[in-house]
């Protein structure tokens, strides 16, 4: 029975979201990579509410990607509780979607833009079901929103970095998740794509969805995010962007000191 459960994926989901609850609630999360003696995540607790747009920042190797991967279930073997809309995180995978780091994707694999965006619908389909008209419509809408409808039949490998990132976001739109995790979505992205990504994220959060974006681009923080979480294996600071992004945290993140009395 357990094996069958493991083999199965997608399809309908019986556990309803808990109203008025947190979108994401993490309680004392510990994680260690197999074979490593050091904790990659050390006692992380975090609550994100519906409608929030949170920037996840920290130095390289701080565990930003690891945290997102553990939340979404790409890395297994953590201890501590992760709840998504009041349910155990991996019970209902419709509610959560990730835009993974570019390097986790085989861009040369021969698939079209439409095929990739359709992958966002797979969680609703599961085994032995082909996309229906409703799924096709959702894919069309998602491509329309990300302004890539004209690229539908192109191979993803032929596109620019910015276009590829639009395809990935269109896929999460087709997924129709309530909690979106984006892992370094701004790398190799042109300005207009960056604006479109933020514009879309703002629309989603305005509609009550929750978004967590990991980034090392501190420049975009003050404009586009209300809240930042600074992690370095542990949560170092969590709060309004201007409280979290201080000369001390920047120095910690990038390994150099600001002179506090330095006035440009």
């Amino acid at each position, binding site marked *: 029975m357990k094996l069958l459960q493991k*083999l199965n994926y*997608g399809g309908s989901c019986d556990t309803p979201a808990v109203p008025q609850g947190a979108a994401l609630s993490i309680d004392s999360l510990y994680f260690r990579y197999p*074979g490593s003696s050091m904790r990659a995540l050390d006692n992380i607790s975090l609550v994100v509410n519906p409608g929030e747009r949170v920037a996840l920042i920290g130095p390289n190797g701080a565990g930003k990607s690891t945290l997102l991967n553990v939340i*979404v279930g790409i890395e297994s073997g953590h201890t501590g509780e992760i709840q998504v809309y009041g349910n155990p995180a991996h019970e209902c995978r419709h509610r959560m979607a*990730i835009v993974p780091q570019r390097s986790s994707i085989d861009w040369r694999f021969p698939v079209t833009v439409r095929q*990739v965006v359709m992958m966002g619908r*797979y*969680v609703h389909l599961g*085994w032995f079901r082909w996309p229906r008209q409703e799924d096709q419509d959702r894919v069309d809408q998602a491509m329309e929103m990300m302004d890539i409808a004209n690229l539908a039949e192109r*191979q993803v490998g032929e596109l620019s970095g910015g276009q590829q990132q639009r395809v990935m976001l269109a896929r999460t739109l087709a997924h129709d998740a309530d909690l979106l995790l984006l892992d370094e979505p701004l790398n190799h992205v042109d300005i207009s794509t960056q604006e479109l990504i933020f514009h879309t994220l703002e629309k989603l959060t305005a509609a009550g969805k929750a978004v967590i974006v990991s980034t090392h681009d501190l420049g975009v923080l003050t404009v586009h995010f209300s809240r930042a979480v600074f992690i370095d294996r542990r949560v170092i600071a969590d709060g309004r962007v201007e409280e979290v992004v201080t000369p001390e945290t920047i120095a910690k993140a990038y390994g150099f000191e600001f002179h506090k009395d330095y006035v440009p």
Partner: protein
Amino acid sequence: MIDFILEPLAYGFVLRGLLAGVLAAVSCALLSAFVVWRGMAFVGDALAHAILPGIVVAYIFGFSFFFGALGAAAAAVLLIGMISGRRRLKEDTAIGIVFSGFFALGVLFMSRITTYQDLSHILFGNILGVSSTDLTVMAVVVAITVISLAFSFKELVVTSFDSAHSMAIGLSPTLLRYFLLFLIAITTVVAIQTVGVILVLSLLVTPGAAASMISKRLKTIMIVSTALSLVSTVIGFYVSYYGNVASGPAIVLTLTLFFVCAFAWSHIIGYLRHASGGRER
């Protein structure tokens, strides 16, 4: 001309050989697209070699060589997974160890058997030695492969393209990989009848590679790959019959020739596009 084509088929064993070749060609060519684009050529080759001891053991104890081969393939895949698991050694290293170890074991078993002639058929194929029982087993295996591919196509594509996304939706890429390895293993056993252990990799890699020179769409690649594989098998088969040469190399060389043509074609097209100064599409 008609006589030229029909004459060999009047013999039952020749007809069975051609049918066996066609079955192997279809099954290998469909998998070929995934073998090429997921970079599984080495593990495919390893599987083909690793099943040798299974076949020899089946031969010695007189049970179906199909199950002997499948058992050896399963053992090889599990061992590769064990050695490369937990990130201790890279997978190609694990494949290298298991592949050569199993093949050596197979050759060792073979050297204890005096009827070397029979087993050279395993190494180089014996397309004219296919019995009707073999043919039935092969047809069942090919049907399983084709149906499995049709029903897991979208899952295979998503795990190949983006393993992070597939894990996030609860679909295990490891599971799909083992599933694909299983299909490659049973297909290899079928193909060994026609081209043998040594050359089976050609059927698993060359059609997909040639088709990829012509198209960039996965479905088109699979169709073109199947067509090329079928045509090569038939041509190779007749060359073998009339030229009195071994069937395996004849099939493989025809396929290789198609690849060379496709390769040249894609370069000429690329050159012409470049020369005309136009951007691609």
